């Protein structure tokens, strides 16, 4: 049958289409922010503040113009109610921080082959994001931020840290100068209070070390090595990386209210193959054949400088990333309102 004689299939009629369009007209119509507003937001961030929209949202929510919102789920809310902890508003913080790199986007290493700039960038991203979240919580007059969910990501040398949590207030207790931050859920927060502990901060332990390798290490991995053998040099470096990261975590905890220990520590480690470019003046090895500038000898292998005066040395990136909740012991048993009040007052 020719196509023009075929019956029209049952499909959407023009009335159906108009009905769908009419329905869509009843939905919220979105409006974008103006460029002037975006510029003001950037200036606010550069000054160390928070964008207008975040400030307004917090103020409108706390004043009751907008409904409160919370990341807490229903059982968490019930437990919050039980300990007279009122959720005020959802608070957020973000920071994208770029660590120093060369023209080709490669990161710099220090004389110990540690990526000090990258480590610094992680801490700045985390600290700035937490600081911005705290600014929102302070606007709300909060005592603490619970259920703070952190997200870290890295694209080459650009680090992102974003956090979202719920600002809360304890009934009848004076607000501290700086709200506490708890990455624990509402239920975990409740449990800690029941046994006399309180989560006070979110702590990060991060270290990134680059380990150049030569014949000694690589020969162990050779297909011609039929022995069971541990890569002891790598284990040593990895232990060092871990030690540095955990020391940093302790230092991070010391930057805020008193911390007696960590709970809920999550650890992520990564080892990946890479390459270090060592230029002639680099102190990373020693010059070969007694002539400055010929090359470097590392781990039993000689790597000559090329025409640009650079030696390309195979290496492993060793990364150790630990996060956890810093907790403080306040009393011997279930935390009372007086004990909590005196602890928060002492933070002024």
């Amino acid at each position, binding site marked *: 049958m020719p196509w023009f004689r075929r019956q029209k299939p049952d499909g959407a009629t023009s009335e159906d289409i108009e009905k769908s369009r009419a329905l869509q007209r009843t939905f919220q119509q979105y409006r974008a922010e103006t460029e002037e507003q975006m510029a003001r937001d950037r200036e606010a961030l550069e000054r160390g503040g928070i964008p207008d929209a975040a400030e307004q*949202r917090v103020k409108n929510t706390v004043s009751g113009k907008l409904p409160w919102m919370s990341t807490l789920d229903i059982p968490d809310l019930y437990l919050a109610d039980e300990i007279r902890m009122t959720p005020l508003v959802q608070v957020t913080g973000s920071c994208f921080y770029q660590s120093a790199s060369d023209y080709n986007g490669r990161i710099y290493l220090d004389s110990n082959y540690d990526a000090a700039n990258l480590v610094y960038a992680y801490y700045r991203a985390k600290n700035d994001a937490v600081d911005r979240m705290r600014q929102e919580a302070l606007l709300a007059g909060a005592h603490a931020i619970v259920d703070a969910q952190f997200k870290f990501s890295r694209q080459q040398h650009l680090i992102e840290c974003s956090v979202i949590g719920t600002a809360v207030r304890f009934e009848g207790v004076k607000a501290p100068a700086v709200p506490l931050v708890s990455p624990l859920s509402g239920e975990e927060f409740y449990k800690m209070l029941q046994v006399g502990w309180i989560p006070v901060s979110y702590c990060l332990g991060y270290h990134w070390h680059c380990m150049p390798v030569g014949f000694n290490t690589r020969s162990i991995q050779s297909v011609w090595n039929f022995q069971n053998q541990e890569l002891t040099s790598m284990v040593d470096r990895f232990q060092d990386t871990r030690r540095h990261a955990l020391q940093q975590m302790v230092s991070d905890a010391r930057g805020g209210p008193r911390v007696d220990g960590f709970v809920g520590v999550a650890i992520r480690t990564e080892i990946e193959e890479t390459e270090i470019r060592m230029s002639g003046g680099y102190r990373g090895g020693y010059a070969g054949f007694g002539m400055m500038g010929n090359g470097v000898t590392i781990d039993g292998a000689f790597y000559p400088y090329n025409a640009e005066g650079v030696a390309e040395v195979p290496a492993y990136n060793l990364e150790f990333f630990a996060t956890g909740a810093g907790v403080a012991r306040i009393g011997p048993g279930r935390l009372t309102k007086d004990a909590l009040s005196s602890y928060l007052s002492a933070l002024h």
Partner: protein
Amino acid sequence: MNEFVLVDEAGFEPLGLVMGSSIYHIGYQQSAWSKNQEMTVLSQAMYNARELAMSRMEEEADALKADGIIGVRLEVRLAEWGQHLAEFIAIGTAVRSKDGTSHRTIKNKPFTSDLSGQDFWTLMKTGYRPVSLVMGTCVYHIAHQGMMAALRQVGQNQEMTIYTQGLYDARELAMERMQQEAAELQAEGIVGVNLNESSHQWGSHVIEFFAVGTAVKRFQESQLASPSLVLPLNDSGR
């Protein structure tokens, strides 16, 4: 099974599975390479399609004379069989109050909620009732860095405020829109807020922030007894 019993305990009876869907063509909008901007055409498309799916699910619940829909799941699948097409599906369980009390919204629509049966029971016992599943979305183009800007940053540790500001704006717009929806329904709060960030198939510099939660309102005093601390000795993964 547990959910069914608890929904019954909360004073509701399940009526049936309800569903709504929308297959939507997402329009086109040119983004400026080096500027942060909201992709309003895409934001509106993502919002309208989800709302259409929800409206159709509510129509099915209306046909069952339901008071509300619980356990709503809202899914988006980008179609492989057509460019710029996406399928939005809303699925839930229609319920009706056993004592005949109406729990419909001020717009005379069934209440909607993404809470499970257990959470629904707990919420009702704490004296709150769900009003509606509320949402806000924002599709945002984050600026690319120009060559000169990249060269100026060589060798420096510094914050990329243009990225931070873009992320803030996108997130704030999504949250504000969700709060606005809840305010229009005269809700007191929004619980279990989820903020999802996704790039779908628009590339790494275009992100969608989707905020979703259940708007709630207090209707009675809490009827839950004080909990006692019970710590399971088996490790259930925190």
